[in-house]
């Protein structure tokens, strides 16, 4: 029962189930589209202005969409008492966590890839800086949100108002990552500043919090 095999099995199971129903990705997609459209009514920027504000708008939209995905992370497990089964099995708990986090990561990244062209079209976005840097920021930033989000989703299902509890405890701790994502995205789009520091910060954030999540997940899983 190695960590790798348990993680892979759980991840593949989740992906397969999601592929069959497409519940999460459809709702996330539609929600993000709504957010983009509503923001378009609120702001009517020129191409120059849009490069300045797009960073913030994009990440707010992705953040909300990620919360929609994260909220239902553990719903299926809860419904079928899988968590109880997991507690008594010899499988390492952090393998379950890793599988859930990776699954969420894939969903949100696919979502971002689908939304990006929409943002380009709606805001006449043309990046002054190199696009590959945007991809790096997106990947590191998404993992930052998803790794803590998956962990906090496991915590918030044990609370009285679980849907609102997740963003409530996730957002404050994610602030440095969000600042990094937004400011680096704006810097790359406008070509006015280098995202190097922000990318390093996101890397540190990701490493530190992945470690903390893996270390503490067992305590949370067994909390009763």
């Amino acid at each position: 029962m190695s960590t790798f095999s348990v993680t892979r099995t759980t991840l593949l199971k989740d992906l397969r189930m999601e592929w069959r129903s497409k519940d999460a990705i459809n709702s996330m997609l539609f929600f993000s589209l709504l957010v983009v459209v509503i923001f378009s009514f609120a702001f009517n920027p020129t191409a120059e202005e849009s490069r300045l504000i797009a960073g913030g708008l994009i990440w707010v939209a992705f953040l909300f969409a990620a919360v929609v995905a994260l909220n239902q992370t553990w719903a299926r497990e809860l419904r079928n008492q899988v968590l109880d089964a997991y507690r008594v099995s010899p499988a390492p708990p952090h393998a379950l966590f890793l599988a859930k986090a990776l699954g969420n990561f894939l969903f949100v990244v696919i979502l971002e890839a689908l939304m990006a062209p929409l943002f380009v079209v709606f805001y006449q976005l043309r990046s002054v800086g190199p696009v590959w840097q945007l991809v790096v920021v997106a990947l590191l930033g998404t993992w930052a949100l998803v790794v803590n989000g998956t962990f906090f989703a496991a915590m918030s299902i044990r609370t009285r108002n679980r849907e609102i509890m997740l963003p409530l405890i996730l957002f404050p701790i994610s602030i440095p990552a969000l600042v990094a994502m937004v400011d680096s995205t704006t810097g790359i789009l406008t070509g006015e500043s280098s995202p190097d520091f922000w990318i390093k910060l996101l890397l540190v954030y990701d490493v530190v919090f992945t470690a903390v999540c893996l270390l503490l997940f067992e305590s949370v899983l067994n909390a009763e």
Partner: protein
Amino acid sequence: MKAVIWIFILITVALLGYGLYQALVVAPTEQTMGEVQRIFYYHVPSAWVAFTLFFVNFIASIVYLWKRSAGSDAIAVASAEVGVVFCTVVLITGPIWARPVWGIWWTWDARLTTTLVLWLIYVSYLVLRRFAAGSQTQVLSAALAIFGFVDVPIVFMAIRWFRTQHPSPVIGGGEGSGLDPTMWHAVLWNWLAFSCLALLLVVVRYRLQLMEENVEAAHAQLALQGGAR
């Protein structure tokens, strides 16, 4: 035991009085800002005390996850709550200071913004404690406390870099910018006084937590017995 506590209360009150005297009378008037600069002597020590309390919360939470004792959990919630109180003082005295000096209430100044993020993190901790279900509360909030404190250096670095990228007025003139030695007396005396006040508040809150838990357990016992009858 009671005598010790009463003596400590008296010492705390005396220190707070002396700190006030140092801040308003002994410390010289600052050249550029004038009298309003004296807010510094309450603003900065409160921030130091809040930060120390959050560190105590961090250690208590780790100890709780390791030992699972009611005492460490009670220290955790007490230090977080009192920390939020001191943080609130920082967040309110900051804008009151900024308004006459800069004409604006808020400038996303690095220290104030970091304090705001800390306040948000620990308020979210307190919210989790209120809404978690029963026995899990303690484990879940201990986990969140660890996340929160580990985040603190990252928050600090992120906001400092953000401020160097996008400069704006610095409330309070930065760390020790031309602080007269007599000014440092006022800062340190108030820091000592506030630390004693914080310790007092934490002890009260700690005992309150344990008493409330005992009462709740007793009620649960009665309910069980009542049902059995």
